[in-house]
């Protein structure tokens, strides 16, 4: 029905990660095609790189962290989320099994070596936030970038780090190896509420304001597709999900994958909206960990554009 | 090679021909790795007229190659200057061909290509250049060695390829540094006659360095003797008034030849003895 730009390029981090599951599903279930969209997904080394690609103009839309929209506002870039995909960060803070006795809560992390995916990333920020909340100076622990995938597992197995702040599937893998004890789990509603007192949007679909203004129909089609995916996800069983994604995503072990799916089930947003409380909780998180960010200058209303979601064909 | 016009100096000198090469107070000092200075050649002046064949002899290490390098424009003198056909030399001396004392063939070209390139450089089409080069390879006795690379030739063969490479261009000034060194006596004479024949055709100016005094006398119009270095000077300048055309072998039987030889040799011997003593000190 006359899309301005029927074929678009969409950036993502590492697609096989559960964080990006809605994207994979939307693609695999044909929801984009239904909307008359041809979507080419570009895989970048990390969320930051996809954002850079968006700003640079090489991709049209990104599935990435909601916090990016806030940071970009501070940098004078108008980037807006149009639909929420993951309402909880999905980050887990855990300690090594043999340290579990010494480190019982976040407050004991003083002097610990904490593995994060990368310095500056969401896992890094969350760990710092938790420490600040517990009354610790984040500088009192050392943060080590351990990367994603196998190197993170290796770092924990080799005892190079005492604690880890990481995402799926590393956490499930480590749990299945019985290597860690979870302290804070933001994959679940309870964990997130305990931590932030509200939900804390993670993965969203965001685009440049100019693009939204110039291509409203295209954006609407995108939102429609994702909204349908979210709805499907609410009712699908883990088996159905597993069958819908490409086999290589199964971590070489379907049981492990199902376990990880089940654990992250709650993180996927049921409706795609972001309420002001969640926005605030994200801003708090950022200002708590990045003193350079000036909370006063941020207009949270400009980070999320819910109008497309309201018009979405699927509710 | 345009005709030179320079008002201040008449193009025909009293002695019938123009000066092809003039060294004017040329002094060469080498700085040894930024420290000591070695005065190889003391201020030296001499001339080679157009069409003149001058040999330079002198004890080993006296500065013969150095003087040729200066004349070729490859080495800047520490003092004095060089004039080529009356023009002050700055940069390379493009009017001369230089046969180096060391091997200087391009190892990545065959012998034939090494000779042909000397023409190609000046615009001769490749086919023609190869044709001419083949002729020259024959003249220096190497027709069968055209396709060899330098490392597949004997020392004497390499030298002869070098000779062909220089002669094929027919430069107006020829600088030759021991061109016949690694050749046997007979080949030397054949090559000497080749050179003389060529020279007779268009009367180049030749500066010819050799250790073989007989050869020097047999070929030249003048033999210049240099003293032992350091601070080498020209200490003798002997005109050779033997009749032309000459045959490099037969001329040695001439009694005049012997007289000349004896006279020059006596002077030379003294010089060499001096070098040796200096060096051993």
């Amino acid at each position, binding site marked *: 029905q006359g899309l301005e730009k029927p074929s678009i*390029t969409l*950036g993502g981090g*590492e*697609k*096989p*990660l559960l964080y990006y599951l809605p994207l994979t599903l939307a693609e695999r279930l044909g929801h984009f095609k239904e909307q008359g969209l041809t979507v*080419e*997904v*570009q*895989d*970048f*080394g990390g969320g930051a*790189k*996809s954002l*850079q*690609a968006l700003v*640079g*103009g*090489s*991709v049209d839309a990104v599935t990435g962290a909601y916090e990016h929209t806030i940071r970009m506002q501070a940098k004078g870039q108008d980037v807006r989320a149009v639909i929420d995909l993951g309402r909880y960060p999905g980050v887990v803070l855990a300690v090594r099994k043999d340290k579990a006795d010494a480190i019982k809560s976040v407050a004991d992390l003083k002097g610990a070596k904490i593995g994060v995916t990368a310095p500056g990333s969401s896992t890094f920020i969350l760990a710092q936030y938790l420490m600040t909340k517990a009354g610790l100076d984040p500088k009192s622990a050392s943060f080590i970038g351990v990367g*994603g*995938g*196998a190197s993170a*597992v*290796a770092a924990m197995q080799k005892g190079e780090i005492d604690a880890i702040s990481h995402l799926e*599937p590393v956490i499930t*893998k480590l749990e299945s190896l019985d290597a860690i004890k979870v302290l804070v789990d933001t994959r679940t509603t309870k964990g997130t509420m305990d931590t932030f007192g509200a939900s804390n949007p993670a993965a969203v679909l965001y685009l440049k304001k100019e693009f939204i203004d110039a291509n409203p129909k295209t954006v609407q089609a995108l939102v429609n597709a994702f909204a349908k995916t979210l709805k499907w996800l609410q009712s699908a069983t883990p088996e159905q999900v597993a069958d819908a994604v490409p086999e*290589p*995503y*199964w*971590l*070489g072990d379907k049981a492990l994958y199902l376990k990880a799916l089940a654990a992250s089930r709650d993180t996927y947003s049921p409706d795609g909206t972001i309420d002001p409380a969640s926005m605030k909780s994200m801003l708090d998180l950022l200002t708590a960990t990045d003193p350079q960010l000036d909370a006063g200058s941020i207009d949270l209303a400009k980070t999320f554009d819910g109008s497309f979601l309201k018009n979405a064909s699927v509710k | 090679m345009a005709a030179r016009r320079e008002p201040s100096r008449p193009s025909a000198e009293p002695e019938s021909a123009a000066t092809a090469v003039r060294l004017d107070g040329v002094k060469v000092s080498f700085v040894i790795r930024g420290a000591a200075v070695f005065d190889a050649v003391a201020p030296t002046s001499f001339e080679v007229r157009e069409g003149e064949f001058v040999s330079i002899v002198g004890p080993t290490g006296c500065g013969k190659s150095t003087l040729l390098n200066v004349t*070729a424009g*490859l080495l800047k003198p520490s003092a004095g200057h060089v004039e080529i056909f009356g023009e002050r030399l700055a940069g*390379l*001396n*493009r009017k*001369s*061909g*230089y046969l*180096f004392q*060391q*091997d*200087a*063939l*391009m*190892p*990545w*070209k*065959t012998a034939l290509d090494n000779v042909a*390139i*000397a023409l190609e*450089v*000046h615009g001769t089409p490749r086919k023609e250049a190869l044709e001419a080069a083949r002729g020259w390879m024959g003249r220096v006795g190497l027709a069968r060695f055209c396709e060899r*690379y330098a*490392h597949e030739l004997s020392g004497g063969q390499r030298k002869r390829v070098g000779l062909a*490479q220089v002669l094929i*261009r027919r430069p107006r000034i020829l600088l030759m540094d021991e061109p016949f060194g690694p050749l046997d006596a007979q080949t030397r004479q054949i090559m000497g006659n080749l050179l003389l024949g060529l020279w007779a055709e268009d009367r180049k100016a030749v500066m010819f360095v050799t250790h073989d005094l007989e050869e020097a006398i047999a070929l030249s119009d003048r033999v210049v003797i240099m003293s032992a270095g350091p601070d080498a000077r020209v200490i003798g300048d002997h005109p050779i008034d033997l009749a032309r055309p000459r045959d490099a072998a037969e001329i040695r039987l001439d009694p005049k030849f012997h007289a000349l030889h004896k006279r020059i040799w006596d002077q030379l011997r003294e010089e060499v003895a001096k070098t040796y003593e200096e060096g051993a000190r």
Partner: protein
Amino acid sequence: MRAASLKLLALQVLVAVVAIGIWHVGSSVPIAGKYFLPEFFFSTPLDVFQRVVKLFVSGEIWRHLWITLTETLLAFVIGSAGGVAIGFWFARQPLIAAVFDPYVKMVNALPRVVLAPIFMLWLGLGIWSKVALGVTLVFFVVFFNVYQGVKEVSPVVLSNARMMGMTERQLFRHVYWPSALSWMFSSLHTSVGFALVGAVVGEYLGSAAGLGYLIHEAEGVFDVTGVFAGMFILSAFVLVIDWLVTLVERRLLVWRPQAAVGQT
């Protein structure tokens, strides 16, 4: 000749067999209760082999291979052409070389991973940003060698050529170029590998296809077998390019004395 090259092949196969043997034992037989090469990190030779076969049989690999090949070749050709050109230019213009020397070295020290976003900004997501990454690796290896190679030209041969009346262009063609060739080829052997590394890293950091993409995708889901299969294909593939370089090298360097080393 025949027998010698058969023996060589046999020895090469032997090395491969030993290496794979160690890998197999390390990944499947525990030594003192620990695996020397845990399967989780190293997969097993058999699995990798099966995966490689599967990739080829399913035909899935061809598209990726083709893209990576294109990127590698472009990076190699552009990088070495640039290295040769600038190397020669600098060697012949000592002042320019001296002025730019520190900057060239500074640029060479920039981590390519950090440059990737900038290349994407300028060159987009297509193959060109990957090519650019490869070029930045290849260029410097070739550049430094050509620069040095030109300076190593035999002074006598050079003087002789200049006395012959060669122009700067002719000197380049007949003296500097052939003389620097062995330096250049030495650097080309290194840079074939680097061109590929550049292309793959580029894909790894952002792309939708190519071997680097495959490897990256496999890495995120702990599919070491996939990673190793990708790396294996990658390196098999560089051998082919290197072999082509060697053919050209042999052709261009016929004039060298054979067996200068170890001749008895």
